[in-house]
């Protein structure tokens, strides 16, 4: 009998330091999270290096993939922000690809027998990572909004053409609505990845515990096994979708910043 045991569903989110480092009182250790961010970033760089190394008029497979991604994001940016969105394309593209790869690499199976430091890890399943990305987006929105529109950016909180008593409430609501943007951006991505991975590990855990029970009970392991397969497929969809949603919302907020003075 092989030794099968299920790890807890939360174990996958544990941060394990690989190279302990500290800066003053801050812990800036190189962790498994950093490692998987690095792996993702490295893979993206390699992919686009391979895609653009030998470009042809008739694209090869890798070049086609890169171009599909490129055109997808560039259509998105153009449709949402308009012509002046062009300068944000590198940012949105980087964001989209990075989140996509971080999400998808988190779904890779861990190689059995690896030490915990090298277990598959999803950087986007930690709120602090997604919050950092959301804050970066909102910072760009605010800085660009003021740079482009000056104080006209504040019109975002002061919509024109309302009956005057409404101005007692509407600016407060608009400010809260604006402040909720980075929160909803960060929490949505984090919660989707977090919840998805927990469900995945729970199903897988059922399979393991039913199999280790032995005997006729093992047959019941089939149901959670099929469930785990279904959830894995769903998670791939969610991984792509969340990267897409993050990119769309980034574009929409940037579009607000770009056009705040227009109305």
């Amino acid at each position, binding site marked *: 009998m092989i030794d099968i045991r299920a790890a807890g569903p939360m174990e996958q989110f544990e941060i394990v330091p690989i190279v302990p480092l500290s800066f003053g009182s801050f812990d800036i250790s190189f962790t498994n999270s950093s490692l998987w961010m690095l792996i993702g970033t490295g893979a993206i760089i390699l992919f686009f290096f391979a895609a653009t190394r030998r*470009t042809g008029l008739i694209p090869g497979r890798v070049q086609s993939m890169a171009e599909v991604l490129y055109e997808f994001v560039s259509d998105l940016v153009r449709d949402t922000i308009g012509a002046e969105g062009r300068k944000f394309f590198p940012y949105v593209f980087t964001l989209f690809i990075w989140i996509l790869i971080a999400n998808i690499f988190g779904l890779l199976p861990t190689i059995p027998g690896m030490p915990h430091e090298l277990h598959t890890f999803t950087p986007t399943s930690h709120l602090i990572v997604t919050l950092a990305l959301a804050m970066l987006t909102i910072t760009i929105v605010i800085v660009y909004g003021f740079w482009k529109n000056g104080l006209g950016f504040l019109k975002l909180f002061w919509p024109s053409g309302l009956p005057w008593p409404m101005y007692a409430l509407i600016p407060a609501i608009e400010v809260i609505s604006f402040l909720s943007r980075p*929160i909803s951006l960060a929490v949505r991505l984090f919660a989707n990845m977090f919840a998805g991975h927990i469900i995945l590990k729970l199903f897988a855990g059922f399979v393991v515990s039913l199999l280790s029970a032995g005997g006729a009970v093992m047959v019941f392991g089939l149901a959670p096994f099929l469930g785990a397969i279904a959830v894995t497929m769903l998670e791939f969809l969610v991984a792509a979708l969340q990267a897409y949603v993050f990119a769309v919302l980034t574009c929409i907020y940037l579009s607000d910043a770009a056009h705040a003075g227009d109305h």
Partner: protein
Amino acid sequence: MLAAENIAVSKAIGQCAIQIVARPGAATRRAHDYLCISNGYTSNCSLDAAMRRLYGPRDFTEVRASFRTCFRAKLMGDTIDKDGAGKEEPPSLDEFSDRLDRMRGSPEPENPRGSGAAWGHAMRVSSELLAGLFVGALLGLGLDRWLGTQPLFLLAGIGLGFAAGLRNLMRSANEGSGHSSEDG
């Protein structure tokens, strides 16, 4: 006026066109993209060139015209004359360009992201409301702590936060009908 360009384009496009004829289904759309950008970008048709198609001047028709001429010239074995216009119109090529037009459909797809966008929309709606409520409550709590007015700002914050959440929802619902949704 396009003659010099045409010669350059035709060299590159010759291959492309043959590719289309050989595998019409798979290659047409892709090849068309390249035809659109290959106007002046014949040697290095890389990702940067795609940018030209998306953001550059809309010179579709001109390039298409030049493509047809070149293609004709290529097939007929002609050299391209000064004004770059082929005289003959073999029926097979008309049929080909009709097919090309049919496959390409309308030049500007209405909603390229279709169901993906709808999915993304559904995903967003769920969290917009909660985020507004959360931020409102948090602001209220913070103000209460600061000013020592315990339940007052929290209640106001929850109310305003709920309103802000609804505002978020309405905004994201409006975004389906174009990006200039801020007039809602």
